């Protein structure tokens, strides 16, 4: 999986590529938690993310919980396949989408 992090002050943009599954989730988790300190706005760019599994959902959930405390988290360019997973699991109601 490709992870591209872009910092802009207290804004962090993470662009993901490929698939977010049980195999790649630990790597993303490690990358993420060392970067979240002081971040007020976290932007996920899913343009190149093909699909995610529950391992990915778990990261999004825990990150959403953190960002609820220190700022805001938004998701961009979510494809239909991933959106369907969000809908199915009720994640649509706890995540914020912006294009």
């Amino acid at each position, binding site marked *: 999986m490709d992870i591209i992090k872009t910092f802009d002050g207290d804004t962090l943009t993470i662009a993901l590529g490929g698939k977010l599954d049980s*195999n790649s989730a630990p790597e993303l988790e490690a990358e993420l938690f060392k970067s979240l300190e002081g971040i007020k706005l976290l932007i996920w760019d899913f343009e190149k993310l093909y699909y995610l599994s*529950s391992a990915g959902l778990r990261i999004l959930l825990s990150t959403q919980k953190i960002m609820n405390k220190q700022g805001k988290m938004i998701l961009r360019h979510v494809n239909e396949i991933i959106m369907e997973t969000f809908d199915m699991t009720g994640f649509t109601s706890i995540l914020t989408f912006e294009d």
Partner: protein
Amino acid sequence: MKDNRKLLMADDFDIKSFKENEMAANKSLSVAAFALAIFLAVLWILIMVLSNTRILHTSNRLVHIGFPIAFVLLGIPFFQRKRKIMEHPGFKYALLGLFIFAISLINIAEPVHSILGFAIIIVGACHYYSKSMLRVAFIGSLIMIFISLYAGTFLGDWDANLIGISEISAPSFLEITKEEFVDNPHTRWLIIRKLFEEEKVNRYLNIFVNYYLTRAGAITIIYLIALQLSGRTYKMLTSVSQNVKKEERMANELSLAKDIQLSFIPKDFPNNDEYQILGAIHSAKEVGGDFYDYFQNDKSEVIFDIGDVSGKGIPGSLTMMRAKTLIKSFALKTEELSEVLEQTNKELCENNDSNVFVTAVIGKINLDSGEMVLSNAAHNPPLLKRNGKFEYLILPKGFVLGGFDSIIYKNTKIQLFEGDQIIFYTDGVTEAMNEKDEMFGEERLLKLFNDNTDKSLKELFILASQAIEKFRGKAEQSDDITAIGFEYKGSEVMTREIVVSTLPENVDVLSEFVNSYLNKYTTNNRAIAQINVAIDELFSNIVKFAYHPEIGKATLRIELRKNPLSITITFIDHGRPFNPLDIASPDVYKSAEERNIGGLGIFIVKKTMDEITYEYKGGQNILTIKKHL
């Protein structure tokens, strides 16, 4: 039944040919009779015109009555030439009788000049190549010469030599007029009697010895020569007809052999959901040396082969039968195709004194997996269509069958995919010659196929055969043209299995494995993504729960079903019994803070797959998911 009839016709041959000859003889004798009739008519007219002149003197009654009758009768057969009566067996005897009658008549009327006429009868009868005909003509002639000689003495034109007195001395000698003397049979008889009395010489015997015997002798010699000639011709005709009969029988047997040979080659071609096979053979001669074959073994593998024997005709066809039978029997018993060729080669090498060789290539296809094994014995490279493009499949060359008994052959494995076609052919295709002695060639064949990649095997075969025929033009087909094609349509159920260690990163291995087959069957990305997510969820469960903290083995089996398209994936591990379906579904309506992530994976799998089942059996966790595609 058809062939019995052919043989009968061959036996009928000489009867038929002699019948034909008889017709020809009848016709030519009819023409000869007509010519003789015209000749007589002209002669008669001349006699009428010139009688009582110094040039010609005759007042013979026979000429005036007999000649018209003779030339009318002789003219009749000429006008029957196109009638059915010609074919009557009695016609020739009627003709013969007519000639004997007419020539005898002329001989009586003109005893001096007409003896050669009897030769006509013998020579004419000779035309029938029949001893009995000749005998009739000969005996008839002998009798008629005899009769006409004595009859001519009294009734014919005056012949001083016959009587033995000149016309000048006779009238005075008998004291009668010249006319009375010449035309009166009674007077002639008186002269003969008088001479007989005076000279004590038997005048009748004199005629017999001096005239009859010499004439009969000449006719006998002509008869003997004619007898020889017609006997020899008869023998020649018979032997020619026997040869023709022999040749016909040979041709007939060859065509029977061809029928047997062709019946030996399968002609019912399967065309089902899984594959199609099509073969074609076009022999250059009555019997050929090419063959193709296909059959299934007890493992439902399809085996097909093609072969080309170095000799043509009978030796080639015998070896062809042998090679084809050997390959099939070995292929049904032996797993490895290379060994099939090795065994066939050994058998063909034994007592191969005539040095007849066979090139062949065999293919064996596992219909479930699409895996194909090929083995080659110096045959032409097959054509393989893959991804919509034909290419020559270059196989290890091997060596001809029947050459050396210790040849080792090699196997080549290739994976066939849906829509792939493989075509075996013999060199009669690529080496088809045109009138300029150019070869059709591999390149032309490849181009033809690549210009028609959307065509079925049947269409391709028709196109190729038309192209070869067009290329060959007026040149003769020099070699057998044979091909067999196989099209793989994919298996109805394709089953694949992979075993991996329960390490998290192996989910990628599983994903790739499954995707490699899924991508061939569907472009439904959503379903593919869902299946990949399911694999991740289920495999990560196994990683986490089955053997943890140990590492064990997990098996993933896929079954792709074509109609309707669906995939079934089974996960098997030998770890702790664990039924993921027992995990409670999460409450998907809770807020982020209230949420617990547990159970979400299985929840997604249940939601996206069409079926999910779990069983613990024989120490194995068996979890199966199915999705329609």
